[in-house]
């Protein structure tokens, strides 16, 4: 690991009642590469990234981002500092248009860039919205009500919202879930382009996507990190094969 650490967790845990969803995890994310987290259902992947972006508070442990402890920061503050999360289960504004959905995100990032007391002009927002929507392939859908989009497109809308948020660390939680094969290829291309300027942490079940994109893979099982390594190391790891193939 030659690269610089962007984010790390230290002894991070989260309990739900008696269940330990994330168990004493020391996870590192290094700058300028695509990293992936894989693992079976219920391994704790979503819970881990929820802890990172502040959606749920940790039971114990800490999170360091760019050298600062962010464990006590509100989720809004974390977004403002560049940690942007794209939901596994879509959480869009279903009664609002795609335009409004993305505009909400764009407006915030533009404000963070331009200073708190300035009113961001709608023309600038509009530019951002159209750009983000067309990057994910939703151009032409600007004025469609978000809730009427097919599920796969709602996930793309989530990605567009995240792009408009001007992320530094973009966490994509199973972005290909519900997408058609051709859309998956587009998304792989998109993530690769995004990753030139943004750090991407990818959570995926689709191994093809993971091995196509990730430069480093973390395998989680039962709330803990089972092993880590390059995609080829992971592919050839006996324990991982057992975990996935059950043999």
């Amino acid at each position, binding site marked *: 690991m030659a690269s610089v650490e962007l984010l790390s967790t230290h002894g991070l845990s989260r309990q739900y009642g008696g269940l330990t969803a994330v168990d004493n995890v020391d996870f590192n994310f290094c700058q300028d590469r695509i990293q992936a987290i894989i693992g079976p259902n219920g391994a704790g992947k979503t819970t881990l990234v929820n802890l990172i972006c502040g959606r749920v508070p940790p039971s114990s442990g800490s999170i360091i981002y760019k050298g600062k402890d962010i464990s006590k920061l509100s989720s*809004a503050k974390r*977004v403002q500092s560049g940690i942007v999360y794209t939901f596994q289960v879509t959480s869009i504004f279903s009664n*609002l248009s795609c*335009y409004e959905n993305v*505009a909400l*995100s764009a407006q915030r990032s533009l404000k963070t860039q331009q200073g708190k007391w300035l*009113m961001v002009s709608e023309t600038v927002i509009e530019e951002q919205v159209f750009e983000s929507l067309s990057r994910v392939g939703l151009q032409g859908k600007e004025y469609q009500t978000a809730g009427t989009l097919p599920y796969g497109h709602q996930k793309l809308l989530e990605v567009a919202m995240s792009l408009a948020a001007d992320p530094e660390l973009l966490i994509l939680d199973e972005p290909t879930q519900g997408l058609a094969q051709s859309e998956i290829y587009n998304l792989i291309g998109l993530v690769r382009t995004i990753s030139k300027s943004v750090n991407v942490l990818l959570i995926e079940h689709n191994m093809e996507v993971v091995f196509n994109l990730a430069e480093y893979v973390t395998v989680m099982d039962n709330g803990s990190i089972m092993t880590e390594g390059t995609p080829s190391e992971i592919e050839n790891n006996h324990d991982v094969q057992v975990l996935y193939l059950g043999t």
Partner: protein
Amino acid sequence: MRRKSLKYALFMQGGVLLLLFLLQFFLPAYHHSSFSKIMILASYAIGYNFLLGYTGLMSLGHAMFFASGMYSAGLSIFYFGFTPLEGMIFGTLFTLTVSLIFGLFALRTKAVSFLIVTLMFGQTFYLAILYYNEFTYGQDGFSLTDYLGTLSILGKEYLYSDPAIRYNFALILLASYLLITTLIVLSPVGRILIAIRENEPRTQLLGYNVFSYKLFALTFSGTLAGISGAMHALLYSYIGTTFAEIHHSISPLLWTLLGGAGTIIGPLLGTGIMFYLIDFISGITSNYLLVVGVVLVLTIIWFPLGIMGTIRQKWLKWLP
């Protein structure tokens, strides 16, 4: 879309206001006075709708803000000899403070708990007015008739309760409420408030401090209610506890739901319709509250979006 909404909305509201302005020269005295009253109450409802319709917070304690404006303006004129203008300013600032402090506490709760907290504070405020009756004149209330003096316009002296003054002051109040809420709703801030109404956790995760936006919405809505109350005190020279009672909190909810929550012009329509309906019914039976209840239930069943909400859904997509 936004620019179009703004342009169309201002044209439409301008038309309505112009019509209301012209009507004063034609309306018979009775309706003239009803319209004045409706415009004041509608302003109150527009402020209420800002919170319910655009931020998604339902309050059952708004009479507290209305009465807070009314009493602080009225009492300061009565006891400290404030001029009507000073009373208005004092009433506004006082209600702003009350709603801000109230918001800091009440907004820690959500949904039904928030509703109950607003109800409790509203009742406490009402009971406090009764309790300090030596100072507030309790149930009887008090009159400002001898304290307001006259208003001089173009060298002529008018009483605040002069029908023409009443009508036009109410109209100015209504016009400014329509304009300011339209501008806010269609601004970036309005977009965030609507986002909070639609999906609060997601709004937080887009990087917005939801609490402070809700606090703004509540304070603004409360202050608008307070200014309506203060204006009511001046134009009707009377301050009394009926304006602090629970039914005065339920009324703006009803007017808003009937006219269309989350539409700017809806509350005006809802207030007007309910006012005339009650006026008509109370000529027939004294039990007009029953009618209010029935209208509320029917509205929710048949027009969950209210009149203007339904019109927006069907025809006028641009309606803010």
